[in-house]
């Protein structure tokens, strides 16, 4: 059991690490497929069109992309839960014009769902 606990400690994932790993692989794929703008969106489009060659690098990208999106979803859920807890208080406040700008996490999730 101690061996397994030690693995949990040493193999923990973080959002920052997930993002950095994803971007590293995306840079390699961008070079391979000559992508210059909005690499992630282009890669998804290529994948949907069956134009990505499913080798180890593409498999790694799938893994890291899924991992990062999951972080974003968890973050989004955390924000929603935190907002729900403070909602009764918030309802008493006067709404501020233009205050509904989405957070960076919400924006990232929305961008992902557009892909």
């Amino acid at each position, binding site marked *: *059991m101690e*061996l397994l606990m030690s*693995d949990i400690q040493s*193999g*923990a994932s973080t959002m920052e690490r997930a993002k950095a790993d994803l971007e590293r692989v995306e840079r390699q794929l961008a070079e391979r497929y000559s992508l210059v703008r909005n690499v992630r969106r282009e890669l998804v489009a290529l994948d949907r069109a*069956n134009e990505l060659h499913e080798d180890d690098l593409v498999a790694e990208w*799938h*893994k890291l*992309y899924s991992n990062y999106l999951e972080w974003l979803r968890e973050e989004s859920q955390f924000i929603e839960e935190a907002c729900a807890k403070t909602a009764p208080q918030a309802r008493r406040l006067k709404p501020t014009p233009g205050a509904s700008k989405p957070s960076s996490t919400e924006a990232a999730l929305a961008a992902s769902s557009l892909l």
Partner: protein
Amino acid sequence: MAVDQAKEAWLELFYPTLLRDVLALDSGDGTPSATVDDFRGRVPGGFRGLTIKLEYRLADRMEVVLDVSLRWCGPAPAYILGTPLDLATWQKRRYAMGYRPRLDDRIFAADLDEVSGHHVHLLSQRGGHIPARDVDPDTTDVDPREFVRLVAEYRRTKVVPLRPKASP
């Protein structure tokens, strides 16, 4: 990275018999390696997610890769190590399982990813995405031990065990 005692314990916890099933593909003449990482939602004594990857390089230069990310969806906030583990309370969030000549394209594979959902790749179909439900047998949510059984069948018969369903 070989399969050390801890990795073997992880494999046995989530997929009892998997390592033995994989080794049986060539009577254990090949080289297994395993990683268990990407632990998510850590709590004291437990966690809510992990990734298990088992690779087996067979002696005949073929290779099986089983890579599965699981998330806890049981009633408690997290799975606590040492408590009984029911696979039904774990959801596969992503998987990539394939059989191929080493460093080459996969002959057949069953994957789940964010872009294409549950799907299959068949070298005979130029490796494109085929929805898992359009293949017989349907590989949606396939257990890695079942995938190893398909590999064993292929090695025995040389017939790819996944076939696109005939159009109506």
